[in-house]
């Protein structure tokens, strides 16, 4: 079903706003970073957790936030290990090196076998998500029809970053806004993170507006079990002037 508004970007922004999200438009990735820094200052954010995001990586968002005194934890396992190692690529590590990194971070000494290492990493990162003031995600896609963000990944933490912290901010490349729900499926299979050994990412989470509940009599209340605020930063020219 196509929406009557011809421009999907405008339609998305309108619908997401109606659903309860706060939408900010950034001409370039750099504007998004500046906006985000202003946001963390306004909301007294001390700690943040971050999902996999190419936009953030290119804009060096983590480093910029750290400079502002914000503790930022990468939650994607590969990114986290890389963060722990001081920025080394995680591709050629031995299991011993992984054990070393996780031990140093968690203060525990998990066995040198994958299950134990994963358990230790999961517990540590999960706690960071529970404690964080801010969660930062990138949407693979967004749907104009409904104002929904589409966050994809094979690891569960992508969902915890979106739901557990007090504030959730999602970065979105305006080129990834599609008109309708049906458009998501083919695109998600082609171009999203995840998809280890299968067509679909394990988790595709559609987030529309702000979480609410009507279960307490008397009112429809925001912040049921997720964040109190849902921010979306739409970046119009993600490639920073060289793109379309």
């Amino acid at each position, binding site marked *: 079903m196509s929406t009557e508004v011809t421009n999907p970007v405008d339609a998305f922004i309108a619908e997401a706003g109606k659903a309860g999200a706060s939408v900010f438009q950034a001409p370039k990735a750099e504007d998004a970073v500046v906006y985000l820094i202003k946001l963390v200052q306004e909301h007294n954010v001390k700690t943040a957790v971050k999902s996999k995001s190419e936009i953030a990586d290119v804009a060096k968002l983590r480093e910029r936030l750290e400079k502002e005194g914000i503790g930022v934890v990468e939650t994607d396992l590969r990114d986290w290990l890389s963060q722990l190692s001081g920025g080394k690529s995680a591709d050629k590590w031995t299991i011993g090196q992984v054990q070393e990194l996780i031990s140093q971070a968690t203060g525990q000494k998990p066995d040198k076998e994958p299950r134990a290492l994963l358990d230790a990493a999961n517990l540590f990162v999960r706690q960071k998500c529970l404690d964080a003031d801010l969660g930062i995600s990138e949407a693979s896609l967004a749907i104009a029809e409904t104002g929904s963000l589409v966050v994809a990944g094979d690891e569960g933490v992508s*969902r915890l970053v979106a739901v*557990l912290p007090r504030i959730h901010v999602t970065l979105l490349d305006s080129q990834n806004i599609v008109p309708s729900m*049906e458009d998501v499926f083919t695109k998600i299979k082609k171009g999203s993170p995840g998809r280890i050994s*299968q067509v679909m990412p394990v988790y595709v989470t559609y987030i529309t507006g702000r979480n609410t509940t009507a279960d307490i009599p008397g009112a429809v209340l925001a912040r049921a079990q997720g964040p109190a605020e849902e921010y979306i930063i739409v970046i119009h020219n993600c490639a920073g002037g060289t793109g379309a």
Partner: protein
Amino acid sequence: MSRAMAERVHRALADENLQTALTRLLGLIKYVRGITFANLDFETLSGEIRHVKETSIANLPDLVEQFKLQATKSGAIVYEAEDAEDARGYISMVVHEHGVKHIVKSKSMLGEEIGIREHLEKMGITVTETDIGEWIVQLASERPAHLVGPAVHKTIEQVAELVSNAVGGNIGTEPQALLDASRQALRKTYIQAEMGMSGANIALADTGSLIVVTNEGNGCLSTTMPPVHVAMVGYEKIVSGWNDAAAILRLLSRCTTGMKMPVYVSHITGPSRTDAIPGSVHMGSGGPRELHIVLVDNGRWQMQETEDFREALYCIKCGTCLNVCPVFASVAGQTYGYIYHGGIGAILTAFQHSAEEAEDVASLCLGCMACRDACPARIDIPRMIVALRTGLAQETGLPWLSKMAYGRVLKHPPTFDKVLKVASYLQQPFVDKDRMIRQLPGSLKSLTQTISLPALSRKPLGDRLKENSSPGKTDKPKVAFYSGCVGTYAYPETCEQAMQLLKQCGAQPFYPQKQACCGAPAYFAGDAETALGLAKENIAALEEMKPDFIATVCPGCASMLKKEYVKLTSGEPKLNRRAKALAEKVRDLSQLVMELTPSQLPKPSRNQKITYHDPCHLKRGLGIFDGPRKLLEREGFEIVEMADADACCGFGGHVVLTYPELSKSILKRKIDNIEATGVDTVVTNCLPCVLQLRGGLDKRKSKIKVVHSVELLADIL
């Protein structure tokens, strides 16, 4: 109707807290539906869901195979459970295997259906419901009152007490404080849990994925934080792929909360994984390492194979049918006594429990069809309820009283006529001067508790119209008048006015003397045999003089003549053709007046304000709601619309006889809405509605007059 059901209905109606909560709920629902459906192409969207569900359920065996294959490929473990016990057994086994002590559970009606929480709790496992409404209901040791809003029956004070006790402190009655306390309490349980449980709103065959929908975020947390995820999925949830899911999602959320999409839609394909640890792909990264999908039958395959009830599987569990049900609005969900509520609950109960128990649930149905028209999957619940009763009557027979009433009396018009004439004699001591009966003695007392009754006429219509039994030779349109039982015995004068009105419109009306009861009471009670017998009598009586039209003043009768006779006679081709020919000629009187006087110009205003009540069988049965209003306006009346003009007056089904208290509560809302318009006349096009409204307003000693439109028009046209 069982004694237990009558007792529950009585308790619900007497429960002030429940009634307060229900009033609040109704307001909220009305508000949400108002916004949601204002600019929505419901026809197209519900058509898409209907198509998706019809196709998926027809191809279900293939889709199930595909789903199992794909889900297994994604790393999930699929188990097929035959019934509730089988499902509980498997889940218990998984619990044992992992040494689980704490479980967080996202809302699942299937979970309720198989009684999983109670079962696990008996095993000593702590199970926490994570939907806040469901959690509140759990704290109160109750069952959910509504598919979507489990705690809609609770007041803020009750919730405050439950939450305060649960978290150990006095939280007060401020909603925000209660929510914050609930969230914090639930967060702790996610961290502790070794297993998460959920249902699935939709399952996709082509990728083996599950779709779990929540607005609070508890679905995401329950399915992600614990290391093991068990999803309980009814087979009917499987559709072919994401495009099908999109069609369902488009209306699901609009119907439940009024939003275009649920806040969180989780599309899950297999357990979480990573390739960041050297070696190979490892499951359990930031999410569960095991995903168990328990596909549950529990009567679903039987439903899939039974044509009459297959469409019950199209249900997307949005709760819309409950939101528009006048009975639900009076008694809420727990009263039904089983897992699923309302009309759809009756059908599901038949397959999960027994037809007898289902009939107990169905006994609450007014037959008003509000659910059918509001259903986003266009499920014809009222049709299935009749099918359920018909099946039950064939298998186990009717209750003796019904057998007597339908088989011995209703089926034989002369006997019926005699019985009512005797009654019209016996009633005399109780008839007031204005021909109303306000109090009956002894066991009949309950009949006059809700409404004052019209006295039965000492001279029924047939006796009054002996001279008008045939149209004679005429060029005018010949109109056979069908009066219906309420018209014949309670309101013969109104029927005479109707005949007069037809004459004024240039027609030649006549009264076929051999007409009988239309059979509706028997038909809706499942006595198809009696209904068919009466159909035969009426078809013969009404076609005899070759009328051009058949005029009715009772839309319930009209629906029988126009729609149900065609179905009832489907086994006899010749009779069926006659029924179809008859159906073509049947008109509601107001409709016929418009047809006979097409060039009548609008009359000047009479400066009289009226309000119009839509009879269920006229609006939803025959699709007529605009015409009667246009006619009244053409004749110079000004219509002030009441709220919920098309809500049932409470006369429907057998509810008025079996649950007078319930009928009274439904009638009260109707009368409140009538009074709120400030007019002094309420017009409707159905004599049974007139009976109910007049009787109710009389009990309230109201001055508002109730008339059939015929009574207004006969004087002026």
